[in-house]
């Protein structure tokens, strides 16, 4: 052991940890794929933009569930809050898209901070129910406030200005796709930075063993609240992107189905992995687009079956499975 310390093992273990945050070549793969998709599937760009938005939304859930271990079924509360913020601004004379995102992030983030300060005092099932309740409450409020939100008919009359005063959000969705891609990329960079920061590592510690985090002097509640509010802001931006690119906001933006399906996509891709959403979301949404057309009745059945298989046989999702296979190959050279 002592000899190792002087020789190889010491630098190896320490170096590996010191290098963990460096960008690896394969991390560029999703972005190259997204850029390639722009040129290869020009008629699918509106679907592409939806996928990018869903990735951002799912990434926000991954940050709190996968890293901090906060279970939630109500992330759509923040998605919807962001969507209505950008939507209402655009419907009332301020259609500038980027400041719309900023406003949505602020509103959703504050909502996350306020609700988190209350509900994050609970754990497990209670917390799950409370997240659900908050989303339901917001949806009902939006339904009742029909004068402002348009209620069940959705918010009408949004006028989103050209991006950077120049690029119209056209029918073919080119601007929308590139806009969503750039926003997702920038926020992914921020999320990646957080995940690899000491703060991000401490979130993982909270997920792995909260009792021990208390025992090493970590302000667990504050850490959980900060990431909850941050993830809420990310969700709000995702909602605002949807509002701006489709020029419409419906009550479903606050609905449970959005939170639930994002959770399924995350589980399929791999929870607690920064790239889980990048695998699970496109797979789910492309499959949904294909299968739902061919066989709309059984779509839910097939996705349910896939989910069961992943949960039973591929803990850690498809990424977890790939990781295990790679490691097994590495052991047997």
């Amino acid at each position: 052991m002592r000899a190792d310390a002087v020789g190889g093992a010491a630098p190896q273990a320490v170096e590996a940890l010191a290098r963990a945050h460096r960008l690896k070549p394969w991390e560029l793969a999703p972005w190259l794929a997204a850029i390639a998709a722009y040129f290869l599937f020009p008629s699918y760009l509106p679907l592409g933009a939806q996928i990018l938005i869903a990735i951002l939304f799912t990434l926000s859930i991954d940050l709190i569930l996968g890293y901090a271990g906060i279970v939630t079924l109500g992330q759509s509360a923040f998605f919807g809050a962001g969507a209505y913020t950008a939507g209402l601004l655009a419907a009332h004379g301020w259609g500038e898209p980027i400041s719309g995102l900023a406003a949505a992030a602020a509103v959703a983030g504050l909502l996350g901070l306020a609700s988190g300060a209350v509900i994050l005092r609970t754990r497990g099932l209670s917390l799950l129910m409370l997240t659900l309740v908050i989303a339901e409450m917001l949806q009902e409020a939006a339904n009742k406030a029909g004068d402002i939100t348009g209620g069940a008919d959705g918010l009408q009359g949004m006028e989103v200005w050209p991006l950077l005063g120049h690029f119209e959000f056209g029918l073919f969705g080119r601007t929308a796709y590139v806009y969503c891609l750039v926003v997702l990329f920038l926020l992914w960079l921020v999320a990646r930075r957080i995940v690899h920061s000491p703060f991000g590592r401490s979130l993982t510690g909270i997920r792995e063993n909260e009792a021990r985090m208390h025992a090493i002097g970590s302000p667990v509640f504050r850490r959980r609240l900060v990431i909850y509010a941050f993830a809420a802001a990310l969700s709000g931006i995702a909602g605002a992107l949807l509002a701006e690119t489709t020029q419409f906001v419906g009550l479903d933006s606050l609905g449970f189905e959005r939170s639930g399906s994002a959770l399924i996509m995350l589980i399929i891709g791999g929870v607690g992995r920064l790239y889980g959403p990048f695998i699970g979301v496109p797979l789910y949404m492309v499959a949904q687009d294909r299968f739902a057309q061919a066989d709309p009745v059984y779509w839910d059945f097939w996705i349910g079956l896939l989910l069961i298989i992943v949960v039973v046989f591929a803990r850690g999702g498809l990424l977890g499975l790939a990781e295990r296979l790679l490691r097994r190959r590495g052991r047997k050279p």
Partner: protein
Amino acid sequence: MSAALETRGLCKNFGALAVANAIDFRLERGARHALIGPNGAGKTTFVNLVTGALRPSAGRILIDGGDVTALPQAQRVKRGLARTFQLNTLFRGLSVLENVCLAIGERLGVAGDMHRPAGSRRIVIDEAYAALERLGIADEARRPVRELPYGRQRLVELAVALGLEPKVLLLDEPAAGVPSAESGVIVDIIESLPADIALLIIEHDMDLVFRLARRITVLVQGAVLVEGTPQEIAGDARVREVYLGERA
């Protein structure tokens, strides 16, 4: 001079059940003190009260003369109080090295940093690795804790607590679950800890208690029965009856 750790009239009731009953306790600086007692005597409750995992029903807790009764766990850790757990309480999915890094990061006050990558603070990682070397588990540094044999995990349990550089260290059955052939390593490490750390060892194993402790407190049904040197405790008739007598 104030004690490293002190409790005055510490009580904890769960309904009608008093699991801690007016416990007056002093842990001197640099002490090697053991807390013993039969199953259900309230030893672990006492640890949870002292660390802040449980709120007392009455009484006060002082660290280094300062009242910490109202402080949350994290604040007490900042005052120099650390603990290990009877059952391994570790970050099982993280590497051994990272387990210790988390503790050191918290101690150095850098753990809330959201901007710099954790890996860029070599000082934290180097210190963690040096700690693993001292405990003889540096060769496991990269392995996830859950892959380690239980006995090796007990050493990580110690390494995480020591990463906090505590002034008061509560060891809750440090050798629990470890085969007797391996527990010697743990005892050796505890014996070689810096003399200025006040140690409180909560233990079942009498051999270990008499080897490590210079003072012993016997807890029975949530109250202090007697306190004294190992010789006094070994010769005490009441202790023999309630505690040692059980084993004879």
